[in-house]
């Protein structure tokens, strides 16, 4: 551009190309800015997911890429009682654990929202189960549930309440409840603290107004707190359900899916078959089979809990 003055016979500026438009157009600019994020998502989310789905249609083994075999893996799974048992276990585990986590978490959040002495410390204590690494807490539970050395059995025996040890992880239903309890213990703080954060955004003036109108405590909760909390409930429960549904570590340390696959979840079965058993294709099929359930859970919380008209500034009819 510095030669502008000298070179007066310069031809008129070159025509604006499509590329120039792309470079300066504001709408396209947004695309450019989104590109790194999109690349990140494609590389680390879409690609592995796509690869997993693709693997489920092949007979890939470890160390060997497979050939396309259509839905054969799914056909085998369809008639596989262990697979269906794992589906049942996963649903039971997710539904029961999530429901209890929500109830206990909400209760704890309401408690912690009150003006208690040592409030900050209590809140920190509640977070502890969530801070401890899962594997560590799972090992602690493994000892608590041990067939011979369980502290619970020991205490009850010494109190004279039972004569023999409780078979926590050896009996089918005991084992199921035991792992569900461990999951609840671990998951409650997440729900409680997140809901507590939500509670603190509720303006005190709303409570004051409700009190002046003569609302009971239940009515205050039902008509003030709960509606204002629904968006955060939707988010926290979506996460909670997803985490529970895909839980692996806890089960793996405690039972490895035993006894007799009574606590085998889809995630653990998939790992057992794909990585330990070497049947990558089949393991991928089990993982892929989790997707519809997860999508359903997300859609439910999205449409069931979150899409309230009043949240978008309309009346709630």
């Amino acid at each position, binding site marked *: 551009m510095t030669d502008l003055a000298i070179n007066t016979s310069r031809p008129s500026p070159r025509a604006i190309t499509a590329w120039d438009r792309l470079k300066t157009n504001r709408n396209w600019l947004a695309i450019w800015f989104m590109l790194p994020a999109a690349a990140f998502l494609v590389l680390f989310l879409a690609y592995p997911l796509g690869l997993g789905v693709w693997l489920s249609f092949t007979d890939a083994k470890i*160390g060997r890429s497979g050939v396309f075999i259509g839905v054969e893996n799914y056909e085998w799974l369809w008639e*596989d009682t262990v697979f269906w048992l794992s589906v049942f276990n996963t649903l039971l585990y997710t539904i029961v654990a999530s429901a209890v986590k929500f109830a206990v978490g909400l209760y704890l959040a309401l408690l912690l929202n009150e003006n208690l002495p040592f409030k900050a410390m209590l809140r920190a204590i509640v977070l502890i189960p969530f801070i401890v690494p899962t594997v560590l807490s799972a090992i602690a539970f493994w000892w608590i549930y041990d067939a*011979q050395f369980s502290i619970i059995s020991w205490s009850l025996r010494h109190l004279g309440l039972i004569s023999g040890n409780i078979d926590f992880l*050896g*009996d089918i239903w005991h084992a199921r409840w035991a792992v569900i309890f461990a999951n609840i213990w671990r998951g409650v703080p997440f729900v409680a603290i997140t809901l507590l954060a939500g509670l603190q955004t509720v303006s005190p003036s709303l409570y004051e107004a409700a009190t002046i109108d003569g609302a009971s405590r239940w009515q205050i909760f039902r008509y003030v707190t709960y509606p204002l909390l629904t968006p955060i409930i939707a988010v926290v429960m979506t996460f909670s359900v997803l985490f529970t549904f895909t839980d692996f570590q806890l089960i793996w340390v405690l039972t490895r899916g035993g*006894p*007799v696959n009574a606590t085998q979840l889809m995630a653990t079965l998939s790992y057992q078959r794909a990585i330990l058993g070497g049947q990558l294709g089949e393991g991928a099929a089990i993982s892929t089979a989790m997707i519809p359930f997860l999508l359903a859970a997300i859609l439910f919380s999205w449409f069931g809990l979150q899409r309230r008209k009043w949240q978008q500034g309309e009346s709630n009819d």
Partner: protein
Amino acid sequence: MTMFTRRTLVKGGTALGAASALTGPALLDWAKAWAQSAPWKPEKGAQLSMLRWKYFVQSEDDQFVKLIDAFTQAMGVKVTISRESYEDVQPKAAVTANTGAGPDMFWGLYSLPHLFPQKCVDVTDVADYLGKKYGGWVESAQKYAMNGKKWIAIPICYSGNMLNYRLEASKKAGFSKFPTKTDEFLEYAKAMKKNNTPGGFALGHASGDGNAWVYWALWAHGGNVVDKNDKVTINTPETEKALIYAKQLYENMIPGTAAWNDASNNKAFLAGEVNWTDNGISIYVAAKKDPTKNDIAKDMDHAVWPVGPIGKPTELHLMYPILAMTHTKYPQACKALMAFMLEADQFNKWLEAAQGYLTHCLNAYDKNPVWTADPKNTIFGEAGKRTLTAGGLGSVGEKAASTISDFVVLDMFASFCTGREDAKGAIKIAERQLQRIYR
């Protein structure tokens, strides 16, 4: 677990310098001479990394570190060792095989090399060299390490899984000698339970102890997962007999074995809660080492598995093969290390340090004093000769490996013993699983 590994790693690191002093210059001289004459010359600048199963007997690992150190000094090849719980070696090896990045060598369990035979360096020359020099390989080890005519791994050792029992309690139950037949063994279990000194076998997902006893029970009654052509043959009256036998045993075990993993019976035996179980020699070694448990060490012994109706031993001992990945840049160094590990000057000391936990696969090592020094060790020396392979009558390939990893047989026994399924139902489920794996 991590703490242990780190501690031993640090210890191993500091031991590296001191090791030559500990083992004496003679060993180093020998190692150097070996390096001169060894058929495999490590590549220039070679460095190796190895993932091995995490030891059960500390002194075994200490000697292993010395051995590796001697190799490093003689060959100038640095070897980095990492350790994982033996069940975790397989997934790591699997990922490495799939991605082509990771340790050069894996020392794992059972038919690990058969999960990805085409990713294993051909080590036929190493196997031939060692076999010729040390009286040949035991038959089962050849099956484990060979793919067709090619050796894809070197069978380093077995770990014998035998019956561990308390002497006094057995005597009280009327058994001064441990039963040698399955029927007798059932009577033994009943008598022990009656005396309030029960024992137990793991029925949870216990890769080692759990699989060892259910395969024994299945084979002892003539049941088989597959025939020699890998055709699924689980659905037979013999399998049903095995299940019924196992259930009778289970009813006379200590409650809770359905939840047991590989560590549970060790804990319970050392706490005096359990009076018979199946395990490696590690319970005995631990009891000898801990002054508070010395009475248990004195009052226990080991026995081979009782023989069933088919009239011959049907044992399944843990096999630990070592393999080199084809992605390694230093295959010659890998081969040299494998051969070095099993040379008499190294391996004899190592066997002794392992106190019976490791059993050789090369016949010449029958003479190692560890098998005679303590009569309670002796039967572990026979593990290599007594064991069948994980594939039973069939091949020791990836299918056999999948069957074991997927706990198909173990779950069949567990579901029948715990009353979840009847015999027919349990067999049917297992048959279907097997057809899926052997399709």
